[in-house]
């Protein structure tokens, strides 16, 4: 068998192409960006502290 392609395909490119064609008016764009920033800040405030330690300590054994 030939070696399988290892590079992961992501849908990113298509979105970039499209958004270049239909870019929103800048004031609306800023508003959306402001809302998004607010949401990301809000999520930051509820994320568990010390991500690395938290993720490492989440272990589930046994199931199904």
């Amino acid at each position, binding site marked *: 068998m030939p070696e399988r392609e290892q590079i992961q395909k992501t*849908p990113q490119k298509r*979105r970039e192409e499209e958004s270049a064609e239909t870019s929103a008016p800048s004031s609306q764009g800023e508003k959306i960006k402001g809302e998004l920033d607010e*949401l990301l800040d809000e*999520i930051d405030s509820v994320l568990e502290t010390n991500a690395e330690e938290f*993720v490492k300590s989440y272990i*589930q054994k046994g*199931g*199904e």
Partner: protein
Amino acid sequence: MSVPKVCGIETEYGVSRRGGGDDNPVVASSLLINAYVEDKRVGWDFEDETPARDARGFTRDASNPPDVETHLVNTVLTNGARYYVDHAHPEYSTPECTDALSLLRADKAGERIIAKSMELARLAQGAVGEIVTYKNNSDGKGNSYGCHENYLMDRNCAFGEIVKNLLPWFVTRQIFTGAGKVGSEHAREGIEFQMSARSDFFEEEVGLETTIRRPIVNTRDEPHAMSSQYRRLHVIVGDANLCELSTFLKVGTTAIVLAMIEDNAIENDLSIYEPVRALREVSRDLTCGSLLELRNGRSASPLDLQWEFFKSAQRYAARTGLEDCGGEIVGAEVLRRWEEVLSALEVDPLSLDGRLDWVTKYCLLEQFRERDGVTWDNPKLALIDLQYHDVRPERSLYERLVRAGKIERILTEEEIEQAVSQPPHDTRAYFRGECLRRWPQSIVAANWDSIVFDVGSGSLQRVPMMDPLKGTRHLVEALLNSCETPIELIEKLGTPH
């Protein structure tokens, strides 16, 4: 001939204890369930459970038995669900439903029940040692726990046909059922993100196992119904979903595909070459467009194969109708949304942000990556992946997105709240749930196909419910209303079993 697709979902929730206390997951799971059921406990009845029976026609001998459920905390709820400790997880099994909408309600009700359990356990235990649960499928360290679907099927349908058609179905439906996962279970591989949280855990095409060498098509044959007439297809390959559209489509489309298999209505053999490997490849192809090799020599993308299934389904609906797949109204809604999602995936998968779990999670992660300038191996992204599934409303990132109006809803909160306490009206879950609501003190045990009453004198009375489509509101509401006591009910039902 197709039979009504009575269906259900059983979800094992990830559980951990934070900030002290006994961190044994069995203890934590038991505390949660006990906190929820307190004094209204009705036990589970294990008679008739045969998890070692195989759909291929044999029963496994005792020398190598599959894991049998631990008989620890086990209870039945007035919505007809089973809520129990399975191995090391709290597990919620929905009541039997006949359509995707009703099952979605029952599944979402499970999330509310688990959230309420955590709240009650916190009140009982104090803040120390808070028990936290996640509706996901993996700890990211090679350990997985399941979200299993169950569908009623015609016993006469050849199992080989089921396997042949379901392999390409399960390999490709991930494109809308995946819950999304950062990385893979095999750290060496170095991928960024994949669609399905479960696909890395599958190693066989067909088999009876659920915890090791997991098969894409599971052969457990334990119908919990008249076994001469029915089998129960046990599906272990799916992800636990939070997006309502993902769950709705997962069960709605699978029910139609199963009815088509029973009616021999899948028009082409879509068998994929090496389906186990294909399952992983599809999970890693976020474009949904890379080609897979088919056994007939053709090649096709996951989307191509989904369109083939869809077009067969459309013609099947026109020819045969969808009465057995949850009725014409819900069936038509499944077809409409299925087509809409496939079209959107074809144009731009990311346009399904807020509608499908894997896309929603991917977009959220991309926004953080962009803002914080971090790479995919940053632990913060793994935390976001985990906390997307946190069941506590104040910590769940999915819930944050809902509150921000970013998630498409199919249900209202009132509908979900109703499903927390009320059973579906059109299966035997109605009889089970209503008896529990009316006479909790007189029921000593219940399971999928019977209820055991203690009416105070003489022996216990078992009421069998072998037909999942009997015991509906239409059939038994007047009877239940005419009985003041369970003794009257037993008398009216006739000679005790």
